[in-house]
């Protein structure tokens, strides 16, 4: 992906996360996930958290859509 492509992707991410906030699935996810992991969210911090999980989701989409061979193991190696 070219640099131009990347920043378009970033811009889309911004726009998507704002749209999502209107539709509220990210809000719903943030509230549910925060409850599950026991993370209290101050109402002042919550909009920034929703914005950032939207950015992260956009980033994750870039590699989640990319097919990997089953043989490709995670990078960290544990040496006992």
């Amino acid at each position, binding site marked *: *992906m*070219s*640099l*131009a*492509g*990347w*920043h*378009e*992707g*970033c*811009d889309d991410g*911004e726009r998507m996360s704002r749209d999502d906030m209107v539709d509220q699935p990210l809000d719903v*996810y*943030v509230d549910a*996930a*925060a409850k599950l*992991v*026991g*993370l*209290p*969210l*101050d109402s002042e*911090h919550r909009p*920034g*958290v*929703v*914005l*950032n*999980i939207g*950015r*992260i989701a956009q*980033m*994750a989409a*870039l*590699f*989640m859509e*990319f097919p*990997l*061979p089953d043989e*490709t*193991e*995670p*990078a*960290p190696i544990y040496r006992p």
Partner: protein
Amino acid sequence: MNLATLDALAATAAVRSGAASAVEIAEAALAHIAARNPSLNAFTAITAERALAEARTIDRRRAQGETLGPLAGAPLAVKNLYDVEGLVTLAGSKIDAERPPAAADAFVLRKLSEAGAILVGTLNMDEYAYGFTTENTHYGAVHNPHDLAHVAGGSSGGSGAAVAGGLVSIALASDTNGSIRVPASFCGTFGLKPTYGRLSRAGTRPFVASLDHVGPLARTVGDLAAGYDAMQGADPNDPACAGRPVEPALPILEHGASGLRIAVAGGHFAGSGVAAEAVATVAKALGATRIVEVPEAARARAAAFVISASEGADLHLADLKSRAQDFDPMTRDRFLAGALIPAGWVLRAQRFRRWYREQVMALFREVDILLAPATPCPAPRIGQETIEIDGVAVPMRPFIGVYTQPLSFIGLPIVAAPLRRSGELPIGVQMIAAPWREAEALRVARALERDGVTNAEPALG
């Protein structure tokens, strides 16, 4: 001879020859810091007592005819995520200021002290190393020595400003996604991010264990190599430290770039404007005409982004749960969001990392050195929120790492070398080598320095 702003090897040469004592150099450096730091805000602590004690020891050893270390008398400072015995390791945070003082120096600081470097203080940074601008709310922004209205980069902003401003000869920093190479680019210094696992991180505050590296910034390639050489060595206290044999770079620094296959990284790394011009200048000087594409670098950057958010949040989860309000607003919401990432995204990012590594290693069968911009632009203004790229405004801060993140992601050794632009802010170029070949990247940087292509003279204000 300006004792205050001597480069490291020049300071050592002066001490050895008797042209200056280590105490004289340390006193000059401390006076320069006292005069200049208020406008730069690079330091969070000045260790004058330790510096003078170390300098006196060196002068005494010289008087007794003892052999001096390779960095004897060279003024050094460390990013404040390095443990310094007797100081609280802040890692740019307010929360960690409540911790007890460190009981011992970080491994690599101990190595540099053994080599004779003189610790003059600790340096400002983004909170927990999560940023590219060092606009730290708790400790203030670091100002760029070339123009105080601009950032020094991050997360090792204090390291960049201290070296560029001539306050120290060598600064230690850390690089998870670009935190050595970004301040080197914005401040116009050299920076080395060694291979992942080369240098021990023991005694430094972690950020993202999968991606954290430590390394030096300096104003000459010789100083960079001397600092790097002195820090090498196996350390069982860092589980990621690969325990490689010591492979000194300084003795082969003058071998030059001949014999190395050098190519420009295309595609994602093509860049535009000043960043592209900088790479073109370096490529021309090196006679590098070949362009190779690093496959799927944008996805690599995204994977590094997600791993960083997740591991960083996990590290600080207890504080995020109990005292989120005490985090810097510049990092807080990103850390909180990082605590909510689905596990599958992180695991896939780590599997993608394996795949991407294999693709890039295949490239290194055909080339020895890749050239890429260090940053997409010179230092932005402090407080600047967006940057215009091809007529589109994008959020400035995350964008800064676009060229550094896909490379630290797979732990490649990289030297960032600065280009000076008359009347303008500097910008850096990355010299990227295959794993464990730091010396090749350093040789190329040295060849450029010798030919006057790259230049990191201090900005003395």
